[in-house]
């Protein structure tokens, strides 16, 4: 078997992979956060009393879930600059283009998760909050949002992990994220097993760290008098 441990270790500790990991994480976090905010707006629109808003939201979700993410990346990075010369400038960077494409894509998925979450919050909660005289924004922030968060943590975490891996598609925009840098190293060294292995380990480590974060978050959303206490990562590991 031809597996060179030395090359593998070099790959793991190489500047290009470490730098790639940083960009991958940044891209994931930025597109997830933006997608979440857009998704919340879409989710609320989806059950709006106004037919126009419902239709808009439905159409958005239909398009952005329906078209392969890879094509969406190509559209934003290559087709749009062809159509709009303003996008051929320096500021329209691979990172920006990738973040836009992935955020728009993520929003469609987040919208559906959040809509399910909103439907799962008992109507009596909203009624009780309104009966206390709470204005609409307070009702959402103090009563609906915490319950929405709790039920959507697992599907959202799933979605986040998927997104983290989908960022590897951003290599088509020449963004120097983890996958791009791995491929570059492979094409000059022809050491496939070592470099792809190292990249796989980095993705695994990232997902594992994130899963710890998820357990920690889920613990914070257990509503009993005993569950309070120090909310440490160590306790999350203990699960």
């Amino acid at each position, binding site marked *: 078997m031809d597996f060179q441990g030395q090359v593998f270790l070099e790959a793991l500790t190489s500047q290009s992979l470490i730098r790639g990991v940083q960009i991958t994480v940044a891209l994931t976090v930025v597109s997830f956060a933006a997608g979440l905010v857009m998704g919340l707006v879409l989710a609320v629109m989806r059950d709006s009393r106004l037919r126009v808003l419902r239709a808009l939201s439905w159409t958005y979700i239909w398009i952005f879930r329906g078209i392969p993410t890879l094509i969406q990346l190509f559209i934003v990075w290559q087709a749009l600059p062809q159509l709009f010369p303003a996008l051929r400038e320096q500021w329209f960077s691979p990172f920006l283009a990738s973040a836009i494409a992935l955020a728009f894509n993520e929003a469609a998925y987040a919208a559906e998760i959040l809509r399910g979450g909103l439907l799962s919050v*008992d109507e*009596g*909660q909203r*009624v*009780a*909050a*309104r*009966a*206390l*005289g*709470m*204005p*609409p924004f*307070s009702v959402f922030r*103090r*009563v609906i949002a*915490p*319950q929405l968060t*709790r039920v959507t943590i697992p599907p959202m975490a799933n979605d986040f992990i998927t997104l983290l891996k989908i960022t590897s598609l951003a290599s088509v925009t020449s963004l120097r994220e983890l996958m791009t840098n791995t491929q570059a190293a492979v094409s000059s060294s022809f050491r496939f097993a070592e470099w792809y292995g190292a990249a796989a380990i980095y993705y695994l480590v990232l997902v594992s760290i994130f899963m710890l974060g998820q357990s920690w978050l889920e613990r914070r*959303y257990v*509503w*009993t*008098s005993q569950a309070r206490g120090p909310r440490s990562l160590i306790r999350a590991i203990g699960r």
Partner: protein
Amino acid sequence: MTGHILDEAAIRELAATPATEFVIEARDVWKRYGSNDVLQGVSLGVHRGDVKAILGPSGSGKSTFLRCLGLLEPIDRGEVHLEGARVGVRESRGRFVPLAERHLARQRTDIGMVFQRFNLFPHLSAVGNVMIGLTEVRGMSESDARTTANVMLDRVGLGKRASFYPSELSGGQQQRVAIARALVMHPKVMLFDEPTSALDPELVGEVLTVMEELAREGMTMIVVTHEIGFARDVAGRVVMMDEGRIIEDAAPDEFFSHPREERTRRFLEAVRS
């Protein structure tokens, strides 16, 4: 004077309305869902310190009526008055239009509501549930609100349960927290929507005791209930609703021993058996 449940300020506030005036009044209230006329001209007024019990079969419109009084549902026709002032609407070019939600919110603070299924906020402890109205609506500081809420919980007998979450409380305890959550806002009237219907039989008593004490201390109350005993012993008037109308309104003695309406008689037989 301080009661067991209400503090001095609350009792003074309640006493400020003349006893002859209706604290809350519905005038010819109509409400339709789709093609179903749930309320068909309901009129009802409650004087200060009075307790009205509303009885009736399910689907008679009792709960809808209470939600309309509580400004949680817009009404199609008729008027709701709180201490003589019309609420839930504003005048615009000579016509009355429903108020925007944030203005309705302000008017709702004068009306306390208690629900069949408690509707406590599961992510907040008992004291958190009682505080939230004070901090979010009354603009009270966190620490003042906590102190006030703890006193209120103590008064409904739950001082030792303040840090418990709803999932850790019995149904009777949850409903008492819900009563405290409404009372802490110093409402002018309390509306109870079948407050004991979701409780195990052995837990009904502790909730009714709190409600009786409240009535004794002069709280104005409307109680939708199936508890005949409570209606007979605590209510000043008992009202029978059927098919979206009030068909009988009498003092408890008369209501239970000589109901005028055949419908009332049949209903009472059914619930007693």
